């Protein structure tokens, strides 16, 4: 949806608008969170190892660095079974370091499938759009942060996680509610859930790594990264990657009477990524960071496989650029400050040669710019009490060469006041976010100004000193702004839209126990939650099938349970086995007053979903197996047979061997060659292979 969705033009009179058509699907995808394993490489002691900040299971950026040199020596193998009791009051799930790299994942999108409470909306193939929906609140309610700063997309509010290769990623953390560390930009408080993607940080030693992946879909994916100390106080790293794939794969549909196998066409992708970072320390022990990121791609947009129409020719070009800088300083024992700035420039071109307008094709170009400034202040009132005041300013601008376009500019000011009290066994925090949005348009009508004030509270408590058992709860009230597409997309946008609100109530626990013997540890956590989404922005018919508009219409009530269990064992000397099980139950009901489908499960939201992972290590060998299950769902709002979508489940396996400076991994994905759709009529690949070789220098 979504991609094509977003760019398919102001629908011609004679054609249903893909954007809104697909939008429905997107909006209603579901998901939930949590699974929290901290892959901190230097956590030496299962029981005592606490992150520096006892409330935060997620290590800060510096801590998450997997020092490549050590990585090389395999030290992280020991670290992987160091499971921490999750202490955060907000559920968090983390994939980091080696654990992340083992997940048969090409991109961040593949990796987030292992989080519970999450539905990955996947249009299939290497180039297909992949977005995350957490706890069924909708894709737009998850903010995605790259190196602590949000990837802004004011146009459609979504981030394609398929574009973030894992090559340069150190950790991925998903928080329900918000990050536990309140000393953060105000934007960190501004979403219903937050996905933090942390890239590898510059480190001490000079170190390089080159990798090449190849396999099914004509994949050729070389990458290289290098880090070194530049001067006494400055560290740098660079990373570059190229990805090329024809993207073709076999898919199959059958109803028992027909049985059709065909090749997915127009699924090719060609992409470049280059990024570089600097990190420096000043004499006064303050530090600074700087990062630039560039991504450029061209891809085909494979369309819906409908009767007699399997081939498409729409294309999409993207050019993403951002530069960001940060500065951290502790002024006194009690007062610290962070300042951040970021500039983002996103260019998109959508070309549809099948579009029957005067020119005989559609060629839409969109340019988005964002300027972001943030300052956060922390004051340590007592040893056990801190307060944070953060202020962010964001300017967004969208230009497009489409008919009757408004050319909107949005100025957002966020002010967050947060406070936290904490001790070894108890933590409580609250935050209040003020949002001030003002919008201006060059033509037609703007959406005007909005002022919102939203709170959040959370607490966690370890009732017994000697047991690693912790209970937690949070409440959060937050909203998402209508996107520029929602408001201004010609023939679809509706400038009278209000924000879409969510309320989240969550209660859960985490428990960890180390053992002596073959079974080394188990760790369990579970959360139950009740969410509601009101004034949900949905596409509704305007004049006819060719004309849709956006309205604040729906109400969704979500009740869910996420459970995750992890165990480490050594069944035989020298063989380490890690097992993980995630399970999610969700009842996400349409409770739109007077709606046609009151009480029905919202589209694309399975009641049951989960995953199982197993890893065995022996000397320099690693064997991984993962299984992902998504239960039955409905493709539309009405839960009737015609809208029923079968469950799907895939098994992936990989085998790796490390040599002193080399490594090789062979993967088989979708081992049982199951043909399935995540999104109706967008077939997923069957069995496919990848082989990866890497060398350190």
């Amino acid at each position, binding site marked *: 949806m979504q991609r094509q969705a977003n760019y398919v033009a102001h629908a011609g009179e004679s054609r249903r608008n893909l954007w809104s058509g697909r939008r429905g699907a997107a909006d209603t995808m579901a998901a939930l969170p949590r699974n929290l394993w901290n892959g901190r490489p230097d956590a030496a002691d299962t029981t005592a190892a606490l992150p520096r900040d006892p409330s935060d299971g997620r290590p800060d950026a510096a801590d998450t660095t997997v020092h490549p040199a050590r990585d090389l020596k395999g030290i992280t193998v020991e670290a992987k079974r160091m499971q921490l009791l999750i202490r955060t009051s907000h559920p968090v799930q983390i994939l980091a370091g080696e654990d992340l790299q083992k997940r048969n994942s090409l991109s961040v999108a593949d990796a987030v499938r292992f989080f519970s409470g999450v539905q990955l909306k996947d249009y299939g193939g290497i180039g297909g759009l992949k977005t995350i929906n957490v706890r069924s609140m909708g894709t737009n309610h998850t903010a995605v942060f790259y190196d602590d700063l949000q990837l802004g997309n004011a146009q459609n509010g979504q981030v394609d996680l398929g574009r973030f290769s894992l090559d340069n990623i150190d950790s991925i953390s998903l928080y329900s509610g918000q990050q536990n560390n309140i000393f953060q930009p105000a934007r960190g408080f501004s979403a219903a859930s937050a996905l933090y993607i942390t890239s590898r940080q510059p480190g001490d030693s000079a170190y390089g790594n080159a990798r090449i992946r190849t396999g099914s879909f004509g994949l050729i994916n070389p990458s290289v990264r290098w880090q070194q100390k530049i001067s006494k106080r400055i560290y740098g790293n660079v990373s570059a990657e190229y990805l090329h794939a024809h993207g073709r794969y076999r898919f199959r549909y059958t109803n028992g009477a027909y049985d*059709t196998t065909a090749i997915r066409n127009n699924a090719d992708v060609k992409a470049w990524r280059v990024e570089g970072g600097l990190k420096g320390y000043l004499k006064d022990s303050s530090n600074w960071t700087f990062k630039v990121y560039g991504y450029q791609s061209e891809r085909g947009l494979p369309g819906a496989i409908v009767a007699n129409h399997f081939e498409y020719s729409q294309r999409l070009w993207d050019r993403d650029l951002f530069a960001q800088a940060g500065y951290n300083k502790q002024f006194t024992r009690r007062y610290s400050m962070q300042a951040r700035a970021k500039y983002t420039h996103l260019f998109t071109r959508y070309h549809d040669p099948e579009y029957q*307008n005067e020119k005989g094709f559609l060629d839409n170009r969109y340019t988005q710019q964002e300027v972001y400034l943030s300052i956060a202040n922390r004051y340590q009132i007592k040893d056990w009490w801190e307060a944070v005041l953060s202020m962010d300013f964001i300017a967004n601008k969208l230009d497009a060469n489409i008919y009757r376009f408004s050319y909107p500019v949005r100025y957002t000011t966020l002010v967050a006041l947060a406070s936290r009290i904490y001790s070894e066994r108890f933590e409580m925090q609250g935050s209040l976010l003020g949002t001030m949005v003002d919008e201006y348009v060059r033509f037609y009508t703007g959406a005007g100004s909005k002022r919102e004030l939203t709170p959040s509270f959370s607490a966690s408590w370890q009732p017994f000193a000697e047991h690693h058992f912790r209970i937690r709860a949070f409440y959060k009230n937050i909203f998402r702004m209508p996107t520029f597409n929602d408001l201004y997309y010609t023939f679809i946008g509706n400038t009278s839209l209000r924000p879409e609100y969510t309320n989240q109530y969550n209660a859960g626990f985490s428990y960890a126990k180390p053992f002596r013997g073959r079974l080394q540890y188990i760790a369990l956590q579970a959360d139950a939650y009740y969410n509601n989404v009101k004034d949900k922005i949905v596409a509704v018919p305007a004049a006819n099938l060719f*004309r849709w*508009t956006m309205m604040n219409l729906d109400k969704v009530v979500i009740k869910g349970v996420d459970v995750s269990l992890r165990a480490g064992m050594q069944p035989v000397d020298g063989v380490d086995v890690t097992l993980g099980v995630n399970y999610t139950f969700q009842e996400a009901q349409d409770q739109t007053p007077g709606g046609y489908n009151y009480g029905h499960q919202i589209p694309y939201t399975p009641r049951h979903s989960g995953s199982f992972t197993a890893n065995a290590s022996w000397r320099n060998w690693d064997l991984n197996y993962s299984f992902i299950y998504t239960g039955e769902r409905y493709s539309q709002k*009405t839960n009737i047979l015609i809208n029923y979508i079968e469950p799907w489940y895939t098994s992936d396996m990989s085998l790796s061997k490390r040599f002193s400076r080399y490594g090789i991994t062979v993967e088989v994905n979708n081992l049982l060659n199951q043909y399935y759709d995540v999104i109706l*009529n967008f077939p997923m690949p069957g069995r496919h292979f990848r082989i990866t070789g890497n060398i350190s220098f």
Partner: protein
Amino acid sequence: MMNRIFILSCFVLLAACRKGVVIPRVESEMVRNFQHSAPPDGKVRGLYLLNEGNMNMNKASLDYLDLTTGRYDRRIFTAYNPEVTRGLGDVGNYIAIYGAKMYLVINNSNKVEVVDAHTVTRIRQINVNQCRYVDFYKDKAYITSNDGYVAVVDTATLEVEARIPTGRNPEQLIVAGNKLYVVNSGGYSPPNYEKTVSVINLDTQQEIRRIEAGINLHRMALDAYGDLYVTSRGDYYDVPSKIFVIDTHTDQLKQTLDIAASNLYIHNDLAYIYSVEWSYITGTNAISYTLLNVRDETVLDKSFITDGTEKQIKIPYGIAVDPETEDVFVTDAKDYVTPGTLHCYDKSGKRKWSVMTGDIPAHFAFLKTN
């Protein structure tokens, strides 16, 4: 070992959850409160209803109402033709019966399914890119393509024989005498809409003129006096929806009626008109129902729904009038992603019954005995 057992049990458990392929079958129900007062020599046997289905969902479907018994069958095309890959397809745009054949125009599947009008078994598929509407003359079917032409199909061989160029994005077409009238919408290029109706001489298969009417033309209906009623959707901003009347004897624009119209159905001297007119200025739909006397182009002071039940229709999307009983069939497409409803009103405008349809019920064809 333990994990191997675990893996194995996962397979077994979960494999059981996947139900596998489901061969399509008809879903039938008896319409509640069904009543039909056909004349003893009545020829109308039933009513086909083509549901469009939302784009990219591949959920176009064909329903059939047996007017002699009141049995309503859903999704009969896929049930009777299960071997057709991916079924009826994406966006059912039009349906028409000609002779013993029924033509189902499936827009985004770029095909016209030709089936036996009585058994609904497939005869042949005709490929026409972005096909929209069909009409017939002698042994030819004429199909508009949004690509800017009319495809000429031989009704015996069902092969496309020729293409007649039209204006941009042609929509409905109607045969009057030996002439074919095709509305040009230009709807893909706002604000440069087309404003004309193309007139094609069917003996020569040449376009002979274009009649200027209004922007963004869409539907048409012909009355018994040779007048063609053409609807314009307007631009959703300042130019409202209207009806243009063309005299097919002179090929002149005869009259412009300030009546908003999304669709119309002419039976005897009455045009049954509904309109869902969206305004981007107010952000609302204005819905109206109008009865027009086509003999003198006067608007009647009553509607074809008189019992107030039109308020229960969210988006009127299709209309047909039983030629024998004068019952009026109106569909409600609701929010386009929920199964719609077919309502039947008697000729005094009172609702007789309603039944659930597929997604976006839209286009009708009456099945008659010979």
